[in-house]
């Protein structure tokens, strides 16, 4: 792997990690305010102001909701971190698309767009990290020209020539950077821009690396 390619690989890992850390910081901030509010209410109760049980329940529910949110973020982070464990493995592509949709939820929201992942039951044997990287690149490419209300859909179907992943709903024809094409080529995939969609066709068997 060249120095540039290695750096791009690290850049992708860094981008995803930064998004995760930002999301976790927000979870902690909400929990901090919720716990602080409970503390304040208890202090006021100690001074004779009654606490409404509904108010306590509402704050507790908010904190529990944030704990579940944090747990989901950490599960995704763990799945992402383990994607480099094996060079090639069989993947549930429905789970993979959902993971990448969730890992990209912050940039999607920041762009004022939405991303719907269509359920699928396809499996593919490929490099998980490479697939994550190309999906991440496709989503960011789609967001470049996204507008408020842009509704993107991400789906996968098994075709004769391989697993076809379609990212549709782009407001205008995208112009992917060469790096995205390179990432797709490294997976032995065909990558096309068609009718305001990004289309990736991954081979059912990973390419020989020659190593």
């Amino acid at each position, binding site marked *: 792997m060249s120095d540039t390619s290695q750096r791009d690989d690290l850049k992708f890992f860094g981008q995803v990690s*930064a998004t995760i*850390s*930002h999301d976790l*910081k*927000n979870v*902690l*901030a*909400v*929990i*901090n*305010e*919720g716990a*602080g*509010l409970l503390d*304040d209410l208890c202090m*006021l109760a100690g001074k004779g102001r009654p606490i409404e049980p509904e108010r306590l329940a509402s*704050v507790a529910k*908010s904190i529990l*909701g*944030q704990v579940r949110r944090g747990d989901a973020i950490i599960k995704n982070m763990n799945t992402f971190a383990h994607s480099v464990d094996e060079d090639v493995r069989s993947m549930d592509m429905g789970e993979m698309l959902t993971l990448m949709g969730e890992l990209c939820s912050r940039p999607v*929201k*920041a*762009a*004022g767009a939405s991303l719907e992942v269509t359920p699928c039951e396809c499996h593919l044997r490929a490099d998980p990290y490479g697939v994550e990287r190309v999906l991440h690149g496709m989503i960011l490419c789609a967001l470049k020209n996204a507008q*408020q209300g842009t509704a993107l859909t991400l789906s996968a179907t098994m075709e004769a020539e391989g697993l076809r992943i379609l990212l549709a709903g782009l407001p205008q024809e995208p112009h992917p950077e060469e790096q995205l094409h390179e990432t797709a080529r490294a997976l032995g995939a065909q990558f096309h821009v068609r009718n305001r969609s990004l289309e990736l066709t991954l081979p059912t068997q990973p390419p020989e690396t020659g190593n």
Partner: protein
Amino acid sequence: MTILLVDDEQELVSAMAERLDMRGIHAEFACCGTDAIRMAQKKCYDVAVLDMKMPRMSGLELRRELSALCPDMRFIFLSGHGSEEDFKAGSAEAASYLIKPVDIEDLMETIRTVMEQ
């Protein structure tokens, strides 16, 4: 003194507003830049506490819009990261800068400080 809290995390700003109210500071909140601007068009707040990274309109962009509406408004930025880049941008634009999660007493102290400036 009236404070405007702006963050896309609704549960965060609603709890923060309630806690400031308990401490004698009236606080109102918005969850996006558009709502914050709408609120500031109706009345001028003394201090705005803005999340730096919000969807569609960042805290820095919102600060410029709010300053145009209320030139005397003071600003405090909130950041999840506390990165060097955020710190420089925040310091250049605002009177103060806090990193999430924020201790309510630190926020109170920062509000007092910016009001005295």
